[in-house]
């Protein structure tokens, strides 16, 4: 009897420990981001206050107005232009990478050909070149070709950055679709091309979309290459723009926090949408023969 009670008590202790550990974990993951978000709505003088102000007196949208140049108070950083650049560059490079990646992923998933494994590995190894190392020759080449400080220049780079990973993911999604389905369609008179668009593409659509989201975020978040290949409002992206704030003598923490929120929000929403497919794509893709 007492043994039974004891085991129940130890079970409860275990449950509490589990709960505590989870709580702690979530706190470490969430609090830093939440603190930045909260600070984005505070006044800069309150952030700088000594002794610290723990409970904000006012929550304001002033910082957002300031960085976009809406209110009376303005700062000299063209965040609006950076935002447009980021959006154009990330969207364009994602669509091109998806088109190239779909063709490549389909080839890896559905065909046998010589040197397949080596080619796949080769693509991965290309992706492994550190951004800053790659930026040196690209900086010199793009200067010669007139691609420096242009959106097109950065788009080309991001396409190649995204292609290997997109192929990995999309290959995985196509593999999960039974070959018999497309064969059946071909028996019924479809060409392989039609079978692809009528059968395989609709089935892999959500997976392809999540590969697209991943590519979008890679471009949206990239810094090492963008910081060297862009110079002005013609092509600078948001992550590079964030550093504009630190170049000044006093750091505008509130402004930086507001800009950080602008960069985070699309990432969070998109992650939320695709999380399930992304995991499936990564674990089942690529290397299975």
């Amino acid at each position: 009897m007492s043994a039974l009670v004891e085991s129940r008590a130890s079970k409860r202790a275990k449950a509490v420990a589990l709960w505590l550990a989870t709580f702690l974990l979530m706190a470490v993951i969430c609090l830093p981001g939440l603190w930045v978000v909260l600070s984005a709505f505070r006044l800069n003088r309150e952030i700088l206050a000594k002794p610290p102000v723990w409970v904000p007196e006012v929550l304001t949208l002033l910082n957002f107005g300031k960085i976009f140049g809406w209110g009376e108070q303005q700062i000299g950083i063209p965040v609006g232009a950076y935002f447009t650049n980021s959006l154009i560059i990330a969207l364009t490079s994602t669509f091109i990478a998806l088109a190239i990646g779909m063709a490549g992923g389909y080839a890896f998933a559905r065909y046998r050909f010589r040197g397949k494994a080596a080619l796949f590995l080769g693509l991965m190894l290309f992706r492994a070149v550190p951004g800053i190392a790659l930026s040196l020759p690209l900086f010199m080449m793009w200067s010669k070709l007139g691609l420096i400080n242009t959106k097109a220049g950065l788009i080309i780079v991001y396409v190649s950055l995204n292609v290997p990973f997109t192929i990995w993911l999309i290959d995985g999604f196509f593999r999960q679709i039974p070959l018999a389905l497309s064969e059946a369609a071909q028996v019924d008179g479809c060409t392989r091309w039609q079978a692809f668009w009528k059968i395989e593409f609709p089935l892999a659509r959500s997976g392809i979309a999540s590969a697209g989201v991943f590519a979008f975020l890679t471009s949206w978040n990239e810094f090492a290459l963008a910081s060297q290949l862009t110079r002005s409002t013609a092509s600078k992206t948001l992550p590079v723009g964030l550093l504009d704030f630190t170049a000044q003598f006093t750091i505008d923490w509130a402004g930086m926090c507001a800009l950080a929120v602008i960069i985070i929000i699309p990432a969070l929403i998109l992650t939320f949408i695709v999380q399930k497919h992304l995991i499936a794509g990564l674990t089942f893709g690529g290397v299975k023969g």
Partner: protein
Amino acid sequence: MIRALTTRRAETVPLLLLAPALITMLFVVALPLVFSLWTSLTPYQLTKPQTLYTFVGLRNYIRILSDPAFWIPFGRTVLFLTIALNLEFAIGLGIALLINKITWGQRSLRTIMMFPMMFSPILVGFQFKFIFNDNIGILNNALQSLGLSDQAIPWLVDAKLAMFSLLFAEIWMSTSVFAILLLAGLFAMPRDPLEAAKVDGCNAFQVFRHITLPFLMPFAYIAMTIRSLDVARAYDIVKVMTGGGPAGRTELLWTLIARTGYDNSKMGLANAMAFVSTLLSILFTYYFYRKLITARRFMGGVQ
């Protein structure tokens, strides 16, 4: 003869499909790497364009390989990555086992887990620069308000503390890659071997050591491969948080490359360093990729 013809025709389709990918990679990665290799064999400086055509052989390589100013950041980078990757694996495994145990709200927890992975590294750097700031950072403010410390701790100014802060940011950002993939592994795990082991009298640790862990290894190697593809993202974090300072004490290979190439405009030297760092990254990735293939083969198509 006919057979050979059909296989050849069968091979043109996939190669055609792969052509755009190959052309992009050749133009934007392979060609620049060749150019980078050539530049690394010249004393090229941005301020003296004609130096691009002076061939000096391996002089740049000999110079960096005999220079402690290169080896110290190099060693620091390797150490940084070793500590970060091992801790990320260990913590990620712990988190995966923890979330696997939880039945209520598991899905939400998993979603939250993924968020740091999607943060821009530059944002992670900024976030922790803000938190670790010695003057206005929440960490020092909290420690002082709670009376745990009577003076501001120089998190990003003291060399050792700065390394710790950088590691913390790096691990915060990337542990979820391991956690998510290992959790996917735990979900995919068949129940039968576990039951059988328990019937045969294995204790919890033995089950974990001999059944769970081997099953999870392919997933760990996927995570390792993905991580080794983008280890250089740590550059962004260091660039924002410390800029390689104080006095070069947190300089990693990548910040050294940027400083040599862009700030000092010694492109030849910087390209030599970049080539060494590229080889390092490729070796890392190749190693884990091979491991992944072997582990998969060893599992014999379980999944």
